[in-house]
Structure formats: structure tokens, C-alpha cells
């Protein structure tokens, strides 16, 4: 049995009539292409991502059968782009259209994620149980909470984590829900790049995963995973071989520079937070003795992959239980799965996804 932890669904062209339009095969908003720079991005994948399921929900069971899948977790192909393109009521209305379209088709085989605007964490928290009741198998959040806002490490998001833990459903972030200018940690050098800069997409493809790392660090190093152990984060769209470095780097920083867990001494620091334009500073989290950040990544962070032989090689380091195969319609690739023991293959191809999303096995 195979279960896909990340299958993209092609949204109908008329889903966002009045807001988004397909012009010459390109999704546009306010006359501008939704996929900036046309083709490169989403961690090097095609734009929009290759959809494993088409726009007609009636055909989804047959399409799953054709792909050899017993079930799939549904991610959008386009809708997550709205996080970077729209704001406020317009964004919420557009997300609602996606949720209204996909959630009624939740079933034992189809597990759709609901998209959640988090600009008001209290409102988002209130939305969580309502979306769960309507069939959401999890919640897809923007990679950066809102353009110009602070990251998920801030205390203002705690109501959201509390609600998600109570719902017992995972949250996801996905490649593609980000504009380059929103990268946390990038510099004004990059900000100065225009959409027509030929290097734009290549740098985006090379560095977008760093924004995913920031979200992982935000949840782990701020103590969210300790305060709310039920919060499980699934990172989709980047494959998985980025995670070992993330684990190693976090442990190294935590263990060798413990003073960085605290807030910088403002009288004795080079990089003041005012210099970085930050409106606040927050202490990091001190784990219980003997626990390091990678332990929490092992218990709370999951990654999808389509074809990533390096990640499969490092599965013991990542955690065999944390690797979830996803399908765009193609079968499991031989270069990733060739030679893998049946027991591990079964976990990557079905068991892990079943456990995280509640598929029957």
C-alpha cells in the first residue's frame, strides 16, 4: 500500500474568479503573474508544481487508483501562493474559496489541508476547530506569517499553537508560499533585485529552504514543541536532505554558544536588534538537561520528499519515522528506493503518513 504525504491538486481555473485569472496559461493577480520570474522557484521545482490530481474532484479516486495510491494528503498547486500575493480580507476570502472547494471532498482516501491565514493568531486559532470539523487533515500555513510581520517564534502565535495541539492535526509549510523579499535573513542586497533580474529565480531556488529552516527553528528553539508537544510540523516541497544540516547546526549553536539562548546584552553587542529593524527581542528556550534541539526535530518535525536519495541514505539521522514520501503521480523512484529494506520502504511509503494523518492501514 502506498500513501502520498504530498500530492498537489490542480485548482479549477475559475476558482478565484474576480481575484485571480488564468491568462495564456499563467495565473495572474492584478495583471501580474502570480509566479514571479515565470519558471524558477519552489526550491527548483516546476511552476506551478506538477499536479498529481486534476481539478475535478469526482475523478480523484480514479486518479489515485491510476497512480497506485491508496490515499493522499492534498496540497494546493497555486493557492499557497496567495499568502505572498494577497493580504487582509482579500486573502482570507481567497483562502476560504480554496477551503470551501476542497474540504467537502475529504474522505478516507483524500486528506486535504486547509489554508490558514495567521495574521491574527487569535482569529486563526478560532478557525482551527471549525476547519477540522469540516474535514481538514491539517493546516497549511504561510512560510512567513505575514509580509512585514515577525516570525513564528513570537509569543503572539501561542494561541494558534494551543489550538492546533488541541485539534491534534499537523501543520504544514510548503515551498512556494513566499516571495524572495520575504526571506528572513536575506539582505538588502537581495531585496534590491527586481522581478526581471535574471538571477532572481536561481537565488530563490537555492535559498528558499532557508526560510523553512527558520520556521523549524522558530518552533523548536522558542520552546513551542515543548510547551505544545502535540504541534507537529510537516515541511513540504523541498525534499528532505536539508534536514540533517538543520539538526546539526541547531545543536552546534545551542551547545557551543549557550549565551545566544538569552537576549543579547544591549550594552555589549555588535548587532543590536534596532540595527536589524526588529521591534522586539525574545529569549530563546532552554531545553531540559540532556535534550538538544534535534531531539525535538525528531519528535515534532516531518518532511515530505518525492525523490531524494541523499535523504533516504541519511534516514537514520533524520529519523525513519519523519520521512514521508509524496507523489506527483509518478511511482516511487528507483534511485531513492532501490535497495531499501522492505520494512523501511513501507514506513516511508505509507506507515509514517498513515500515522501523522490518520489514514487507516
Amino acid at each position: 500500500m502506498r500513501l502520498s504525504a504530498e500530492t498537489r491538486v490542480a485548482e479549477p481555473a475559475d476558482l478565484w474568479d474576480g481575484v485571480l485569472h488564468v491568462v495564456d496559461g499563467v495565473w495572474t493577480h492584478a495583471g501580474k503573474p502570480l509566479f514571479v520570474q515565470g519558471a524558477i522557484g519552489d526550491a527548483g521545482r516546476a511552476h506551478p508544481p506538477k499536479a498529481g490530481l486534476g481539478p475535478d474532484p469526482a475523478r480523484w479516486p480514479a486518479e489515485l487508483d491510476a497512480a497506485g495510491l491508496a490515499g493522499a494528503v492534498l496540497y494546493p498547486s497555486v493557492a499557497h501562493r496567495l499568502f505572498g500575493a494577497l493580504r487582509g480580507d482579500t486573502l482570507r476570502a481567497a483562502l476560504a474559496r480554496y477551503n470551501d472547494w476542497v474540504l467537502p471532498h475529504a474522505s478516507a482516501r483524500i486528506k486535504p489541508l486547509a489554508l490558514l491565514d495567521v495574521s491574527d493568531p487569535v482569529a486563526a486559532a478560532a478557525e482551527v476547530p471549525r476547519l477540522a470539523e469540516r474535514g481538514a487533515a491539517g493546516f497549511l500555513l504561510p512560510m512567513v506569517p505575514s509580509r512585514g510581520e515577525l516570525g513564528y517564534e513570537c509569543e503572539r502565535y501561542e494561541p494558534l499553537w494551543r489550538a492546533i495541539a488541541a485539534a491534534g492535526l499537523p501543520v504544514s509549510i510548503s515551498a512556494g508560499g513566499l516571495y524572495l523579499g520575504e526571506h528572513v535573513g536575506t539582505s538588502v542586497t537581495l531585496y534590491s533585485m527586481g522581478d526581471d533580474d535574471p538571477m532572481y529565480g536561481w537565488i530563490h531556488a537555492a535559498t528558499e529552504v532557508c526560510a523553512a529552516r527558520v520556521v523549524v527553528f522558530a518552533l523548536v528553539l522558542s520552546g513551542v514543541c515543548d510547551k505544545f508537544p502535540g504541534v507537529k510540523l510537516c515541511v513540504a516541497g523541498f525534499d528532505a536532505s536539508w534536514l540533517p544540516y538543520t539538526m546539526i547546526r541547531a545543536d552546534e549553536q545551542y551547545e557551543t554558544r549557550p549565551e545566544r539562548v538569552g537576549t543579547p546584552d544591549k550594552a555589549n553587542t555588535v548587532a543590536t536588534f534596532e540595527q536589524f529593524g526588529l521591534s522586539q527581542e525574545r529569549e530563546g528556550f532552554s531545553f531540559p538537561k540532556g535534550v538538544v534541539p534535534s531531539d525535538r526535530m525528531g519528535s515534532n518535525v516531518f518532511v515530505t520528499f518525492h525523490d531524494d536519495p541523499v535523504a533516504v541514505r541519511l534516514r537514520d539521522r533524520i529519523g525513519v519515522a519523519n520521512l514521508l514520501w509524496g507523489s506527483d503521480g509518478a511511482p516511487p523512484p528507483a534511485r531513492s528506493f532501490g535497495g531499501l529494506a522492505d520494512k523501511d520502504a513501507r514506513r516511508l511509503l505509507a506507515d509514517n503518513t498513515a500515522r501523522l494523518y490518520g489514514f487507516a492501514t
Partner: protein
Amino acid sequence: MSALPPVWSADSHVVEPPDLWSSRIDKRFAHLAPRVVQRDDTDLWLVGEGSRMAVVGIQFQAGLRYVSPEAITKKGRYEDLPELTPEKYTDALDEDGVDGAVLYPTNAGQAWRHVKGELLTAIARAYNGWVLDYAATKPGRLAPVAMINVDEPAEAVRDMEDAAKRGACAFLIPIFPLPGRRYDQAMYEPIWAAAAALRRPIVFHVLFTQGVLQKEPVINLIRHSVKETHVLASIASILMSGVFDRHPTLRLGAIEFGASWVPHFVDRLDRAYVAHRDHRVVTLSGGALPSDHFRRNVFVTFQDDRAAIELRDVIGVHNLLWANDYPHAESTYPRSRQFLAEQLGPVSEADAIRIAGGNTRETYGLG
């Protein structure tokens, strides 16, 4: 592997003495030069009109991580620190079981975030004069890296040539150049050409960058855990603009970022390069992929990165350079040989020789 081969650290640091710039900088810039001031119970480096350039404590706390990590602090007074003379430096290397070290700055590189133009050039030249003299007293054990201001590439080339003549083994440039510029721009071609001709690598070191960070996580530890973003962006712009096609012998180093980020990075670029042919900035010659250029031209340093050791066939075993980061708080000193032995235990003797020191000697041209 039964015994460790000769060990060289590809990334260690000097601690600049407080009078370095007051005694050496071009007199025109004396009033703006890096200087040490006391603030309450700590010393600080200031530069220019009074920008805080660096702190003192953290830079000389090697070994504390093992005995009292809670004592690691940015606070420190020069008068409390032992002077790190070349003799004391090599004594520490002996204690650490390390045969030699490539020397990067501790404080000088912080100047990039605060000043530019002629002042920055003057700071770099004064630093280079000092570190080249410093290392020259211990030939065969200490190898200095020169700091190069790239604001004016023609002038940078002259400084590179001068530093090479005087013994510099590599050229340290900022991870990002001035805001609004990027290394894929043609103005930097003379720098790549000069480094290739001089047979010395260009190196990017963590935290040494000109582009000012803008929006960052509010937790200090997170900020410092994602510093690789900058070097990934710069290396991508260099790789994808064909710099290594035009300068096939140029070597480029990513210093103190660890190494296991490499396989995912090159895989992303390869996939995008293959999938988005129409959007290529250049098509690499001979059917090469970005990963081919990375493996040929880019090296990385690490202290403790066992995933990278496991993936040495993907990264390129000749591109993996171990480092001890002495005397900074993160340093593996005085347990470097233990770290190396644990990491290199599973690898072949030939690979261990390369990673422990052979690659460093080869890459930096140390004979």
C-alpha cells in the same frame, strides 16, 4: 583508520591586539580606525564614527564549552586576556594536536558591516600587514588569509597581488558586497581572474558581510543558526552566472558554515538548471551541471559534521576541510583530535588524510 594523519585547521583565528590599527593604519584614517573602548565591565571595538564593531569576550574562550559553558560570554577585557603571540598560538596547536592553522581575522572582518571605501581599504591593509608579519614568524605552521576590500575591484586586485607576494594563502572577501551589488556582476571578473592567476582561493567566512541584514528572527539563537542563507545566495549567483566556466581553476571556500548543506543545495540548482533551460543566465560549457562546478571549484570547512562525512562522495572528499575555530568559544580545542578521530573513524585512510589536513594544505597552497 587507526591513527590520525597530519592535522591542519582550515579555519582558525587570530585575536587582533588592541593597538593593531592605531600603530599601523594610514594616518589619514587614524581617528576612524578600529579602537578599543571600555564600557562598564567590558571592552568593545568601535570603528568609524563610533559604530560597535566587535565584542571581546567570546573571541578567546576556547575550551570553556567543555568545562563551564555557562561562563561563555561576550564580555571581556583585553587586560584580562593573555596576549596570543605566535609562540603561544603554536603552543596551543601543539596542545590541541594540530600541526598547523589557516588564520582568519576575528575583529577585522566585522568592519565590513560598518565602513566602506577608503577607510575599509586602510583597515584591511593594516590588518594584512600585521597578520602577514605575525604568521611569518611561524612558517609552516601558521598560514595567513588576507582581507580584501572589493568596493573597487581594480584596487582589490592590487591588494591581492601585494598580499600574495607577502605570503597570504587566501583572499577573504565579504559574503555580500555593497548593497545593490552581487558577485555575478561583471565588475568582479578581475577579482576572480586575479585569484585564479595567483592560485589562491577566494573565501567567504560566516558573519563577514557587507550587505546589512534587514529582517531577522527575534531570537538570537535562531539568527545565528541560519547564517548560511547568505553564503548560499552568493555561491548560487557565482555558480549560475558561469564564473567557474570563465575561471575553471578558481577555488571558492565557504568557511565555518558546516558542510552537510551542500548535497541539497547542489541538487536544487541542478534540478532547476535542467528543468528551466529557458531561464538560464548562462549555459555551462561541456554539458556541465552546477553540481559539477561546485565539486570542482568550491570547498567547505566544518568542525563537527558527521552527516557531511557520510556524504563525502556527494560533496567531493577533496572539498571537505576540517577546522578547529581556535580560539573562539565554538572551538574544538583542546579536543580536536578526539573530534577528528570520532568523525573519521569510519572512513578510509586516504579520505582521512585529505579531510584532516591534506585538503587544507592543497587548497591553500601550503606545500
